[in-house]
């Protein structure tokens, strides 16, 4: 017989803090610390990542939410950013050569705002200076002079031809639409047809020839007029240019001198000056349209708009590199966008409508993004990767990228990008990206892996106390006394289901602090105590445990059949955990097993009804192979068995009940009853070793609650894997019951230990002859299986019985 397990000592059921480790009375005495618990691995990776200059070393910070990832990032990045120089201002300006492609302009930090203001001032000056230059009398006089000269030139040419014609006796007449030549009489009057017809034929012919010749000369002359008029227009334009140059030159020269060290600005100012000169007519007074349209902007205003500066990124109030946390990382928010406004039924835009994105704002610094949000925004992930790979920010609308629009969009000049991107996300996301996206690893070379838990050591206890002190102050809560700190640490261990660790999930603990603070204030206390923490925990549970209460009520009333005393063959109390959001509770479930002669098949009814998950099925297969290995090495396993979770009508998953299932099977085979005052949890392998399971605290408490409701008798308890003892952080009432000998927790390492505990019989070991002793559990099982084998052999020789058996099996 194996050494029968004894109940675990109460100290093993709950690992309390040592009060001697804490030298303070309340956390008010403790200093502030960064709100990040020991995360050495992650913090080293973060530091490395932010200090690396190489562009491919972006960072992915992985770990569950609530462990302080963002706090750590902001702290590390913030310190590094302060030491870096402030990056440049970026502007967009009008491209006079190609308005569709606005130019990017980089300026020293703070200069963008100044340039923008200077250009606004210049525009204001131009508004007055240009029209004033053209309203002066001198300009009018010069224009009139040019036009008069043009008129006189044409008139003189016509007059000369008229004179020439007159000398030949021909008159140059003006008609409504042009000119005509006609012969004159000696008196200088136009010859009538009657007089002409009386002339000798040779004279008539001569006159005709003269008229023809003069017509040709006039034609030639008239064809020169367009060229003369063009010359006049050119002279007018030149005059306008000179006037404009005079009016605006000094204004722009002042600005050129101010920005002489920035060549790009000087070039821009030159382009502005040239544009004004080339389009001065836009600035001259325009005739009022017959129907004034209030929303139509004048040509002058349209032109002046082009001289403005679109200050995309303004660093005038920044110190050091920027740290940007973009909370909605869609395509437009990352890359920037180009806005449009509606005008008379169309959408129009220009360089001034370009808006900065998070990448612009973070350029030269750091950009923090939530990875899941980036991946779930349409095309945001591709946009981010593409931009990081190209190392430039090219603003392009999603519609254009997807070829959904055919209108001519703006194509702003790309801006060089130098940014460190820090993605945050959970581990599953990181590993999925690593496996499925080949570009991911090239761009995000540094994982910063945050732990979910920390070892329970005096050092971490001290750190935890300081973190709680800082949290309480930050959230304006009452300080905690020593007992409250200890309780929270113990609760943190329970949260992580490990007596030797504490959770790093500060968010949950922060909520607990707040609730405890409420409890303390209700009682008029000046500091939060252990009782307040417990009250907060109890209140939280009470808010969520309606279903648990119902289940317990059903069990107590016998609606759900669970025995807590007596013995039954082939029936055992298994344990499962039900999770509802952030609240979990354990509940006992009756597991039954039936056995008979068969072909070695163990039917898992849960699986047959498609209620059993894969892991559960795996557990049943394992135990069936355990049985085959132990009892059917030299004989066929002539067994048909079935297992079921009684009164369970929902999905069943996990293998934590495989030990209980195996015990039920063996009980049925050995025809030895199992104790019903014990519940069993544990996973079993093919060799009969008992393996640890999850939710051990909830499972024990689940059975304890039922036993307590029905009445504790001192023999009740739970059998757990030994490997789970280190995870025990049971409720105080369970621990007290154990101390009082009213409830017991046993730990086992092998299935035989569990069998002996449950059947109060020795399990038995193989003897030299290879058989198990008859009066042992294994012996009885083996004997039963032998009987099945012999029966089966006998029936096999009878075809009629075979058919009936086969029908029955099916």
């Amino acid at each position, binding site marked *: 017989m194996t050494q029968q397990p004894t109940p675990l000592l109460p100290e093993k059921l709950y690992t309390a803090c040592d009060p001697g480790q804490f030298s303070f009375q309340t956390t008010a005495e403790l200093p502030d610390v960064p709100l990040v618990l020991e995360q050495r691995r992650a913090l080293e990776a973060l530091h490395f990542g932010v200090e690396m200059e190489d562009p491919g070393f972006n960072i992915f910070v992985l770990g569950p939410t609530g462990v302080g990832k963002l706090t750590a990032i902001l702290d590390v990045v913030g310190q590094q950013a302060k030491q870096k120089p402030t990056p440049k201002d970026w502007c967009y300006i009008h491209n006079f050569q190609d308005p569709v492609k606005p130019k990017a302009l980089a300026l020293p930090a703070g200069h963008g705002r100044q340039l923008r203001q200077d250009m606004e001032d210049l525009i204001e000056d131009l508004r007055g200076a240009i029209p004033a230059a053209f309203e002066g009398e001198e300009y009018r006089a010069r224009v009139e002079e040019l036009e008069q000269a043009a008129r006189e030139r044409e008139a003189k040419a016509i007059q000369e031809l008229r004179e020439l014609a007159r000398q030949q006796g021909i008159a140059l007449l*003006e008609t*409504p639409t042009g000119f005509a*030549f006609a012969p004159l009489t000696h008196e200088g009057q*136009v010859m009538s047809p009657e007089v002409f017809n009386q002339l000798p034929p040779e004279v008539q012919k001569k006159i005709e020839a003269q008229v023809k010749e003069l017509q040709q000369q*006039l034609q030639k002359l008239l064809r020169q007029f367009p060229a003369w008029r063009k010359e006049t227009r050119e002279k007018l334009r030149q005059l306008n240019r000179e006037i404009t140059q005079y009016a605006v030159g000094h204004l722009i020269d002042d600005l050129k001198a101010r920005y002489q060290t920035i060549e790009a600005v000087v070039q821009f100012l030159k382009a502005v000056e040239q544009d004004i000169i080339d389009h001065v007519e836009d600035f001259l007074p325009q005739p009022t349209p017959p129907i004034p349209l209030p929303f139509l902007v004048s040509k002058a205003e349209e032109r002046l708009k082009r001289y403005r500066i679109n200050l995309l990124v303004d660093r005038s109030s920044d110190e050091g590199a920027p740290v940007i946390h973009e909370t909605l990382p869609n395509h437009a928010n990352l890359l920037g966008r180009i806005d449009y406004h509606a005008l008379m039924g169309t959408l129009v835009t220009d360089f001034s409508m370009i808006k900065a994105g998070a990448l612009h704002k973070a350029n030269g610094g750091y950009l923090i993004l939530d990875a899941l949000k980036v991946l779930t925004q349409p095309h945001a992930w591709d946009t981010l990767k593409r931009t990081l790979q190209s190392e430039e920010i090219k603003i392009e609308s999603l519609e254009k990228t997807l070829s959904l629009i055919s209108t001519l969009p703006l194509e702003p000049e790309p801006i060089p990008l130098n940014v460190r991107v820090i993605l945050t996300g959970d581990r599953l996301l990181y590993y999925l990206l690593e496996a499925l996206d080949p570009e991911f690893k090239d761009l995000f070379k540094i994982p910063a892996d945050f732990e979910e838990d920390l070892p329970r050591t005096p050092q971490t206890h001290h750190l935890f106390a300081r973190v709680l002190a800082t949290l309480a102050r930050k959230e304006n809560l009452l300080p905690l006394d020593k007992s409250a700190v200890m309780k929270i640490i113990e609760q943190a261990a329970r949260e992580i289901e490990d007596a030797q660790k504490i959770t790093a999930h500060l968010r949950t603990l922060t909520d607990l602090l707040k609730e405890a603070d409420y409890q303390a204030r209700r009682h008029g206390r000046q500091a939060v105590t252990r009782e307040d923490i417990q009250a907060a925990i109890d209140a939280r549970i009470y808010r969520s445990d309606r279903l648990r209460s119902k289940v317990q009520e059903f069990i107590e009333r016998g609606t759900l059949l669970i025995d807590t005393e007596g013995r039954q063959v082939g029936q055992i109390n298994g344990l499962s955990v039900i999770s509802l959001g952030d609240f979990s509770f354990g509940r006992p479930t009756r597991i039954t097993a039936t056995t008979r002669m068969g072909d070695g098949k163990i039917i898992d009814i849960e699986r047959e009804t498609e209620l059993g998950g894969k892991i559960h099925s795996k557990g049943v297969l394992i135990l069936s192979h355990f049985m085959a290995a132990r009892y059917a090495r030299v004989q066929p396993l002539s067994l048909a068995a079935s297992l079921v979770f009684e009164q369970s009508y929902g999905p069943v998953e996990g293998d934590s009940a495989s030990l209980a299932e195996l015990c039920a099977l063996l009980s049925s085979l050995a025809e030895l009853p199992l104790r019903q005052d014990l519940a069993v949890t544990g996973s079993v392998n093919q060799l009969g070793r008992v393996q640890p399971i999850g939710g051990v605290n909830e499972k024990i408490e689940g059975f304890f609650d039922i036993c307590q409701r029905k009445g504790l008798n001192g023999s009740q308890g739970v059998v757990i894997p030994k490997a789970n003892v280190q995870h025990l952080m049971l409720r105080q009432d369970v621990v007290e019951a154990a101390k009082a000998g009213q409830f017991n927790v046993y730990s086992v390492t092998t299935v035989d230990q569990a069998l002996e505990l449950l059947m109060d019989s020795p399990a038995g070991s193989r003897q030299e002859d290879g058989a198990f002793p008859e009066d042992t559990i294994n012996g009885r099982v083996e004997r039963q299986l032998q009987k099945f084998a012999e029966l089966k052999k006998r029936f096999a020789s009878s075809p009629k019985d075979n058919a009936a058996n086969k029908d029955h099996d099916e």
Partner: protein
Amino acid sequence: MTNNSSRVLVALNSLRLRRRALEIGAHLAVQKHLPLTTLFIENVELRYASQLPFVQEIDRLSGALTTFEPPRLERLHRLQIRQVRQWLADLQSQLPSPGDFQIVQGNYTESVMEIAGEGDFLVFSTVHEWAVIHQRPPLWVWFDDSPGADRTLTLAMEFASRENYPLLVAGSHPAKSTTSTENRFILTEPDGFIDLLNKQGCSAVFCPRSSPLAKQLPMLAPCPVLLV
């Protein structure tokens, strides 16, 4: 010359039809409560030229040659006459009494002088009107020592005041009229006056009918000419 002005006579030239002269004539007719007579002068020289088979018209804008025949000239004139009647219909409501429209063939200025009575105000259209820089160019008065100069000046001042025009006076003799023309008198010769009109711009020119310049002004001035 008596002061009994019987009508305002507006002479429109078939060579270059201008509404401006008609408008000025109508304003003057309203001011003086006189009937308006509109003359459409068909240039007889053009008629003769159109009847000669070898004469062609050279288009002013393109220099292209087109046939210049009487039917075409007739058509052009009919269109012009229709245009003038339309202008008159537009102005009819402003006039104190129904106007009169006559079609005359002959030389432009000579035909008008033959028809005009002594007391008539003559308004000549311009052939050489150019683009005007000023929105409202001044009214000009040619003041010389011819009879009627004072009357011309007085009429022009009344017209300018009523129609809100700036008024400038030029001439070879300073104005001796009691009517003050200080700051508005420019001493110049007739050639210089034409130059002034071209350079400064003019809305209309008032000139005594008896002045030697009266014969040249209708052909040289870049705006309507009123002979008083």
